[in-house]
């Protein structure tokens, strides 16, 4: 590893397990931006959430390696199971601020059942859903968020399946905070993560992220930067959009709606549970 020339420490080193660097991510990968935004959100929230109460849970995949780099209590579960682990943690220790950061394949394709149930329960978790439109770690196969028509190693002639719109799915499942950004929207993402930290209920943030190696190269984005340029030209802030239209085709002429789509203050899982138990509900 060559050492950076002018700075000895990075302002967010406090939140990074620097002894684990260099990380495994490819050049041009969006995951570094997300690490940057996430750790900054932790720093910004210090006043209300002590760093020692922050927890990160990841599944398996390139995105799943997040847990090993962020310097808070963190756990790297099996493929698709970050949300159940996080649920067990949160229910057992309510003072923890539990964030799940993992990939589209992990959280939606193999782990989708846990994701929709967590949203339905409106359980007090923050999910940061890294959508790079493919299975990066295993070499670029399609998954449940891969755009229709996209080329992957298991859809050489174009994906003949159809992707989920994550914001639409999460909103209908019951998530009470739903936002979507790209890795270009670093400031908005940071703020959104802070909002999620302080939201009492299930928060879901989709972050569209370049994966030049697994997805980009085969789909007209030769480099990570090319996909960032696309994010810049296509994304459209649309907080009040009908979520049916919150698609992500990755096609040149289509919009990429981003924004904070849902902020609903309905009572969270823990709040309802506590009230039910205090009233001795269901037992009389």
């Amino acid at each position, binding site marked *: 590893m060559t050492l950076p020339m002018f700075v000895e420490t990075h302002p967010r080193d406090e939140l990074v*397990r620097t002894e*684990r660097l260099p990380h495994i991510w490819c050049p041009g990968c969006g995951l570094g931006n997300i690490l940057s935004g996430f750790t900054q959100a932790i720093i910004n929230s210090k006043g209300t959430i002590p760093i*020692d*109460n922050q*927890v990160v*849970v990841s599944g*398996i995949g390139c995105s799943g390696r997040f*847990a*090993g780099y962020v*310097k*808070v*209590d*963190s*756990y*790297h*579960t*099996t493929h*698709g*199971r970050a*949300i*159940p*682990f*996080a*649920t*067990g*943690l*949160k*229910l*057992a*220790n309510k*003072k*923890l601020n539990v964030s799940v950061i993992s990939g589209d394949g992990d959280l939606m394709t193999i782990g989708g*059942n*846990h994701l929709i*149930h967590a949203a339905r329960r409106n359980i007090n978790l923050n999910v940061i859903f890294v959508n790079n439109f493919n299975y990066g770690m295993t070499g670029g196969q399609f998954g449940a968020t891969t755009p229709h028509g996209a080329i992957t190693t298991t859809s050489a002639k174009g994906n003949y399946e159809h992707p989920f719109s994550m914001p639409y799915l999460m909103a209908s499942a019951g998530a009470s905070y739903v936002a979507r950004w790209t890795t270009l929207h670093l400031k908005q993402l940071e703020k959104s993560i802070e909002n999620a930290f302080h939201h009492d209920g299930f928060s879901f943030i989709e972050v569209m992220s370049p994966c030049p190696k697994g997805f980009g190269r085969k789909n007209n984005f030769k480099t990570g930067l090319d996909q960032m340029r696309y994010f810049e030209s296509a994304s459209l802030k649309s907080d009040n959009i009908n979520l049916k239209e919150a698609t992500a085709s990755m096609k040149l002429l289509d919009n990429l709606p981003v924004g904070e789509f849902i902020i609903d203050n309905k009572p969270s899982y823990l709040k309802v549970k*506590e009230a039910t*138990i*205090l009233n*001795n509900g269901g*037992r009389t």
Partner: protein
Amino acid sequence: MSENKLVEEPRVLAGPQFNSGNFAVAEAALFAGLHGYFGYPITPSTTIMERLASRLPYVEKPGAFLQAEDEIASITAVIGCSWTRNKAMTATSGPGFSLMQEGIGLATFTETPLVVVNVMRGGPSTGLPTFPAQQELMQAHFGSHGDYMVPTFAPNNVQECFDLTIEAFNASEALRTPVFVLTDQILSTLKERFLIPKKENIELVNRSSPDNPHITWKGETISSNLVLPMNCFGEESKAFATGLSHDDTGHVDLSADTYELLMNRLKEKILTYQHLFPKPEKYLIDDADTVVVAYGSTARSAKYAVNSARKKGIKAGLYRLRTIWPFPKDDIIQSLRGKRIIVVEMSSGQLIWPVERYLKQDVEHIGYLRGSVPPPSLIRKKIEGVN
């Protein structure tokens, strides 16, 4: 939630009880200090979950209860709960136990204390949901991919459902490992008298921590070289754990030396302390020519058969396993080698494997597959040599 007015029954019930094996398992868990139960309904384990759903939130120091969306979620949430330094468990049966296997591997590799109760029913697949069987003995050992060893205890009456569940929690905490309790459909509903002992008469063990690395269990200090003190979440330690190969700090390390060291230590820690696990019951074996080897409900029938044979002057005995894994191979060799052996189980042949392997002699077998314990008369006839 700390208000005691919610407490309808104390956390630990006192004195003599008349109830089922599943009830005893649930009460033992509360006795042991259970904090989190995560499960998915499946016969014949469900009544454990129902009992804890109505008990856990209402006792002093209320705990977490979740009816999960499936057994994969159940086992993984149990692991999550355990990483907050709280005792956690789930209970399931056949199909649910299959779904939990990947999570069980994760728990062994991240050295997570937890208890899984498998109330066995007939398999494979949906099989015989409401009838007993003993077909998960091998799955308890080899069900998840990779090499690992989960201590596995098997009660055969309601009192033991209580006692061995406590032992399971203690072993899991002392050795930082998942522990299985294998019961069966008969024990789940069978009602018997059993005693909940006074709290002060039962040792309860809590896992080690960096502040308290030297815990003792049954008078023995657990080596902190074999069982690493556990950093849990919310303790300002920046804890980390992964299902990838890792070094002693918990961080990813795929090198050959680290992996080999880790694998050997995980095996060693269980084998080193196996003498602290529940001992087999040896009934009339000293002078016996013929010994029946069995566990769980089947051993109740086998004991009846041994008694009937004895009345007829046949020197029969019973060797009943209470710890299945690690298999008590030294004891079984010492106690039984050279005798005529009949393995009886509600399976077409699982317990017979380790018995044959370690005794290295011919072993007779009753593999009963009729959704009930083999009747004593069948076992007695086998003992008598009448087929």
